């Protein structure tokens, strides 16, 4: 019992997730044809992984709970996931658990070597999850995602080497510990590590792989990939920016602003929901990057934002799950035959993404604008505001059709993932202050 009590919290979560993975892998043959039992095992391991984290610090709690929420939505959608080969459901469940493990390790690791390995575990699981979607498009998108992930991972490992050379350890960078002789090597190292983390956030120059992956994968799995990657990337970048504000903050602000502009124009040009969501995620990643560069207040706002954003996007993807991997054009939403629950879920998600009060998305955007205003002043905040207002234009385009669908009585299978993610969004909308307080604790403010 003493041994169990002495395991630090994220490690306990990781152990439970690994156990779940191993059980699923051992029973692969038997679980291939019983998706409900499979999903139950997966959900139980994820819930089990959330428990030890409750004893940890705020950073651990935010990271583990966020990743577990992403995993839960993905896992609830496993039985209905649009796979190329439906006997491969056990692998999907195992990869969701492995990806969650990687994301938790990336966000909470005590040193950068573990974080790097966690990131690569997440990337690999994510690429395979995308590849397993039905049709030829997911495979191609996954390949592109994986190649770009490998390149950014190479940059990260190179940066890790430079950091090791400059400081002699794999510890997270801290201000004021580096020998002035090595400050250039240290700076390049930190920037390359930041590049590796930023790929998971999908900000401006590193977005082609994620963009395709979010668009082409099976919705439930793409939602998981997106959510787990973003939450881990924001926490990791926040820790990096806290320790190395000098090279990181201006770069984050710069790529944040470019991403907001680029993602907004990209999303405005789209004609279908999934690609619009993929482009708008770049704009939102830009908002988070901008906030990450704005000191402790900004980092708290970014973590607050990512928790809300991730749950909202999970709701959107969960609502679209089960209808195939193809695009969902704006004009054809009404004919899609979404059930009232799904249409309502998608409506709530889009309202929150657009930042309409009193949805949680409103509070998330407000926190970021507030941090940006007090740290950077007028012009950068104006760009962020314009990006947010333009969001209303593209997010709300399918809304009339969706509202019509909520009145039409289309019967469909129960959608536990929609209920779960929807409940989470509603709770966050009712108590945003609590989430913000936890986010502030997480960054040590």
């Amino acid at each position, binding site marked *: 019992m003493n041994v169990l009590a002495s395991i630090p919290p994220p490690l306990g979560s990781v152990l439970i997730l*690994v156990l779940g993975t*191993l059980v699923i*892998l*051992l029973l*692969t*043959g038997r679980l291939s044809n019983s998706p409900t039992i499979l999903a139950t095992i997966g959900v139980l391991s994820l819930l089990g992984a959330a428990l030890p984290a409750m004893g940890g610090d705020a950073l651990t709690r935010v990271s583990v709970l966020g990743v577990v929420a992403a995993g839960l939505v993905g896992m609830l959608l496993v039985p209905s996931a649009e796979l190329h080969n439906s006997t491969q459901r056990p692998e999907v469940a195992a990869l969701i658990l492995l990806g969650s493990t990687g994301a938790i390790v990336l966000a909470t690791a005590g040193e950068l070597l573990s974080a790097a390995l966690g990131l690569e575990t997440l990337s690999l699981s994510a690429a395979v999850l995308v590849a397993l979607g039905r049709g030829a498009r997911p495979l191609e998108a996954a390949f592109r995602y994986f190649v770009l992930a490998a390149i950014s991972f190479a940059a990260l490992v190179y940066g890790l080497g430079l950091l090791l050379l400059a400081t002699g350890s794999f510890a997270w960078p801290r201000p004021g510990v580096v020998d002035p002789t090595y400050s250039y090597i240290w700076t390049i190292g930190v920037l390359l590590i930041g590049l590796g983390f930023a790929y998971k956030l999908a900000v401006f120059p590193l977005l082609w792989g994620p963009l395709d992956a979010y668009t082409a994968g099976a919705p439930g799995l793409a939602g998981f990939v997106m959510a787990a990657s973003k939450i881990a990337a924001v926490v990791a970048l926040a820790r990096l920016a806290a320790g190395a504000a000098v090279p990181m903050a201006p770069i984050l602000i710069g790529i944040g602003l470019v991403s907001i502009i680029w993602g907004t124009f990209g999303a405005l040009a789209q004609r279908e929901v999934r690609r619009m969501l993929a482009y708008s995620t770049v704009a939102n990643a830009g908002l988070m990057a901008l906030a990450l560069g704005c000191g402790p207040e900004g980092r708290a706002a970014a973590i607050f934002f990512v928790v809300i954003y991730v749950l909202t996007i999970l709701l959107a993807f969960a609502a679209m799950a089960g209808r195939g991997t193809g695009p969902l054009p704006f004009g054809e939403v009404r004919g899609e035959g979404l059930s009232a629950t799904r249409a309502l879920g998608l409506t709530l998600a889009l309202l929150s993404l657009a930042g309409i009060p009193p949805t949680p998305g409103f509070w998330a955007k407000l926190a970021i604008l507030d941090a940006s205003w007090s740290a950077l002043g007028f012009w950068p905040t104006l760009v962020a505001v314009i990006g947010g207002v333009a969001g209303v234009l593209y997010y709300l385009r399918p809304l009339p059709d969706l509202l019509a669908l909520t009145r039409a009585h289309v019967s469909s299978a129960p959608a536990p993932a929609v209920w779960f993610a929807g409940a989470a969004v509603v709770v966050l909308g009712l108590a945003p202050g609590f989430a913000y307080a936890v986010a502030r604790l997480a960054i040590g403010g």
Partner: protein
Amino acid sequence: MADYSALMVYLALAAAIAALLVIISGRLSPSNPSIAKLRPYECGVSEPQTTETRWPVRFALVAMLFLVFDVEALFFFPWAVLARELSWNGLLAMGGFFAVLGVGYLYARARGALTWR
């Protein structure tokens, strides 16, 4: 560098033998080529197709699995040289590593990835 002298001698010998074989067979054999002799099959039917055909993807699968287990085997070396000193902690660490990949191996068998179809 004394430890590596045997390795160096071995490498030098290997290079010398390889070079010797090529040189001797090149010097001693008479050479008067003709078109018929230069074809892959000097007698019998000519080759039905080029060698540049598409290989089945299972070759890549085998190579990938080989890579995974090769890396796993590699990690045994630093543990093995110190197995006694590392004692139970080392055994636990190695056991955890081995257990995960051992389950991976059972999974690969269950999926028939190790059988040649």
